[in-house]
């Protein structure tokens, strides 16, 4: 486990350097004058013109050679300073702290909701393959995954916000504001995880050890809880790590639609406005989060299946020999 954590820490450093460099390069190579874009982000289209963008260019030193600007950013990063937003001029770390906080809340709630719904439905469907429930679950999950998040969001807003008026259609500040955005995200996540769980559970239910458990007289409940869920959870937990990508993609869309001040919304605006420090800061935060969450997934997998740890040790042992 210590080796895993050490490896992940090294990966984190690599991610920081690679993500930071790539995002800097991407921003640099995007067509268009960055001073104009930054001026537009700051002052809006009606105020922005070449005269203001020249002032911005001079203020930010955008006419300096790109290598100097990159080295300055690297120097700041080594001092754990992400710099200031070129648009709002607030420290990037402060902006990310606020926005990442909202996104994390949204993501965690969506994730938990999807865990409550997806794997449970998947497990039941997997225990009864070919049943009406299984086929119904397949239909619903395909429909939910096929519908883009923004369409799903608008449908939920229409039904639960406008028609039933159970939850606020948009905004943030209270738990009720979290419901529709997190359900939008959770349904997409649950659609996939339920299918992964269903297939894993079908496989486990057909395994000899599962049948053996029942032959030796264990109750259905005990067989499922002791032998079924644990074994079927392994691919699901691994898959949950991959689902972070969907979550990030969904968060960008969902935050914009629901007027939610998250990191996805911030990233989109930062890219449009060529706010390089904000792009780097948000990309670093997301990259770091990926490494962290994948580490948690790995640790969970180790916990669920200790044989994985033993295999790692034996491989290291062979390499050492």
């Amino acid at each position, binding site marked *: 486990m210590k080796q895993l954590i050490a490896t992940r820490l090294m990966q984190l450093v690599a991610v920081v350097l690679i993500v930071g460099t790539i995002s800097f390069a991407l921003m640099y190579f995007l067509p268009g004058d960055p001073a104009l*874009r930054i001026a537009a*982000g*700051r002052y809006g289209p009606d*105020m922005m013109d070449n005269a*203001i963008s020249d002032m911005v260019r001079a203020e930010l030193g955008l006419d300096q050679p790109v290598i100097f600007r990159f080295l300055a950013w690297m120097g700041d990063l080594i001092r754990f300073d992400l710099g200031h937003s070129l648009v709002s001029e607030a420290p990037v770390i402060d902006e990310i702290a606020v926005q990442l906080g909202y996104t994390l809340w949204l993501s965690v709630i969506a994730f938990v909701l999807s865990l409550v719904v997806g794997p449970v439905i998947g497990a039941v469907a997997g225990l009864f393959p070919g049943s009406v429930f299984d086929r119904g679950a397949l239909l619903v999950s395909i429909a939910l995954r096929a519908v883009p998040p923004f369409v799903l969001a608008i449908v939920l807003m*229409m039904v639960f916000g406008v028609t039933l008026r159970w939850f606020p259609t948009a905004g943030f500040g209270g738990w009720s504001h979290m419901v529709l955005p997190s359900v939008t995200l959770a349904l997409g996540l649950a659609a996939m995880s339920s299918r992964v769980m269903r297939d894993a559970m079908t496989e486990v239910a057909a395994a000899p050890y599962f049948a053996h458990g029942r032959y030796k007289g264990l109750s259905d409940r005990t067989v499922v809880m002791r032998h079924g869920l644990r074994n079927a959870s392994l691919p699901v937990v691994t898959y949950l790590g991959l689902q972070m990508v969907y979550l990030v993609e969904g968060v960008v869309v969902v935050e*914009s639609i629901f007027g939610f001040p998250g990191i996805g919304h911030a990233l989109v605006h930062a890219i449009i406005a060529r706010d390089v420090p904000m792009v780097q800061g948000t990309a670093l935060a997301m990259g770091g989060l990926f490494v962290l969450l994948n580490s948690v997934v790995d640790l969970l997998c180790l916990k669920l299946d200790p044989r994985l740890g033993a295999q790692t040790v034996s491989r290291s042992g062979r390499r050492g020999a």
Partner: protein
Amino acid sequence: MTQSVLRGICASVGILALTMAGGSSAPALAAENDGILDIASPLEISGLDPAKSGYIFSRMQAAETLFTVNRDGKLVPMLAKGNHVSDDGLVWHVSLRDDVLFHDGTPMTAAIVADHLNRIFARPGVLNRAPITGIHAHDGEIEITLSEPFSMLPAFLAHYSTIILSPASYDDAGEVTGIIGTGAYRVDEVTPPLQVKMTAFDKWWNGRAGIDKVSYLAVGRGETRAMMAQSGDADLVFSLLPVAVNQLSGDPEVNVAVATIPRTRLLKIDAAKPFFDEVTERQALSLAIDRKAIAAVVMRNVDLAATQMFPPSITGWNNADVPALAFDPQKARDLLAQAGWVEGADGILEKDGQKFSVTLRTYASWPDLPLIATALQSQLRAVGINLEISVGSYTEIPSGHADGSLEIALVTRSFSMVPDPLATVMSDYGPGGADWGAMNWQNVEAADLLADLGRTSDEQARAQLQEKLTAILQYELPTIPVVWSELAVSASAKLENLFVDPFEQNYYLSDLRWAK
């Protein structure tokens, strides 16, 4: 494992769903009557610097300017009490109201205001475009010295970037860290880029606002804003899309108000390019545009078809005497033929071996612009002009102007950023043109008229000059107006005293009341 277990699970899920559906009779969570005035608008808070987001704080009456535009469209003092100008027009004295307190309790003094204006003058914004040579506090007044007479100074001092803030709004480095203004509402909390929360300020110099708490939310998507209006989550929603106006008009819980605003969708053209260098070519282009069709289909209001640059709501600038811009494709073809353009084998006009094929730049941050561009493409094709449409960032308009690569662009231009349209007209149609205005268009008479207007404060004299200038713009067409704009606002039926300010200077929140 028996099928009965599965049936049990299905039954449980069904019961749960029924229980939730039964909850529809419960009190609505979303639109609860909490007494807070919830506002939704597309405008995001990009920073606390007044030049960046001052328009939000000024419209929300959190901060105020020395001058403003009243409900009749007249420029009047706000935090100023009055002003007088030296005979040579080079020194302006602005006296201040005596009874004004900032939200932190600090009294507003001439020294504070002068210091604040000097900070603003040093930053990007409109103030540093005025010929100001000094701003000082003198005998309890603000003394502003100029290098040349400048009649628009009060209008510049009504611009949102000149909102007056308390010294406590700045940190030691001179950056704005909070909005401590003098308005009807005190800012309690700002969560950039989306939210502002405010409370009525008890010691506002103009009384007390009728509603105690206000919450502002920036919502970029028009569909979301419309749904917030429908659901009652927002009591006041600004900038409704045309389709939402129709949708909300039949809702008894919502009142929709629409005002024509000084903003025109127009074609910016490079008058030096061989396609547009003759006035007949520009007039032909204008005659080929069916503005009523565009206004009816895209803007959902046929009255928004532009007959000239300025809509009738802009007093003094809308010129009733000029012939209205018309749709006459046959006359357009005749004028183009007169200019030497002949139809090629493919139906596209040609002259000196060059096809009449140009790239029109536009941008999608105003969702109707790409639609209008597509309509223009079709309409101009009918007279033999080929338009290639390039939809990108709006920054490509000023960059194309600067490097000369822009041929034609469809843009939206506001004439009320500074609440005297002259400021924008002078910049856009003065010698050399401007990023968002004319391009390579020269007209000596127009330049002289603009120079005279800049020096003249007398209203009657200005009206005559404006009339001549608008006639030139209508004939010469350095830019070609397409459609005017409107601001659509929805207000909950619970609200009274809504006024939609066509100059977009003020939401008049302090006048709003909850209906009894």
